[in-house]
């Protein structure tokens, strides 16, 4: 997970994750353009909407695969704690925001923001967990 790493599992993960995110970007554009311009009906709508969710599922699976491949069990443990922290924080934010949206006319949070929110919160949590072992 560090910038300069000679850990092959981490390096493979970084490359694969970037590839998955590139696919996410391309599929997002494809899906947006497709849904806006063609106004497809039925099955095609669903297919187009699901398209960008595929690289995200892939990215989550990549995190799992990295954990499996990472031979350094301490690093793996740090990552697991960071992921759990990220999950908890994401659920707190969406729940609080959800109630604010409904009852206090808060600005609507786009559902598409849940993925970047999760990644950012995992990142913050990773830093905090790391700091604890310094």
């Amino acid at each position: 997970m560090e910038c300069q790493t000679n850990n092959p599992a981490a390096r493979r993960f970084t490359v694969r994750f970037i590839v998955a995110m590139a696919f996410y970007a391309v599929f997002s554009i494809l899906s947006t353009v497709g849904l806006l311009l063609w106004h497809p009906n039925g099955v095609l709508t669903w297919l187009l909407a699901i398209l960008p969710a595929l690289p995200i599922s892939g990215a989550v699976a990549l995190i799992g695969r990295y954990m499996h491949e990472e031979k350094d069990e301490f690093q793996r443990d740090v990552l697991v704690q960071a992921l759990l922290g990220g999950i908890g924080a994401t659920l707190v934010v969406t729940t609080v925001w959800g109630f604010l949206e409904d009852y206090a006319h808060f600005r609507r949070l786009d559902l598409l923001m849940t993925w970047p929110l999760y990644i950012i919160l995992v990142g913050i949590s990773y830093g905090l967990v790391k700091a604890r072992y310094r």
Partner: protein
Amino acid sequence: MNCMNNPVARRLMWRLTITMVLYVAFLVLAVEIFVHYRPTGPLAWLLAVLPALPVIGQLAVFGLYLAEEKDEFMRNLQIQAMLWGIGATLAVTTAWGFLENFAQVPHLDLYLVYPLFWFFVGISTPLLKARYK
């Protein structure tokens, strides 16, 4: 998780029950006040956040359980189930987000992300357990 003679699991069940009761109570209270007094500004914000507090408590309870669980294999399994749960949840919210933005699908209330997550954790748990049979 499955045997109730495990004191940690029993504590978890108790604490979860308490947060559920608080959740229902806070939700009813907040809705009642909104209906009868129509508060605005910071008071409205505070009231809106009220039902979210037991949910946060519930997450903390689960965190405590993971920290207290003496059976490391079970803890590991639970964590794996949670990772699968978040993966499925994020896939659903992303697909739904596109449908909502561009295909006029009804808005998924954000607080439903939380039950959605536990729903997927619930599905993953027996599947993961079967793998170690």
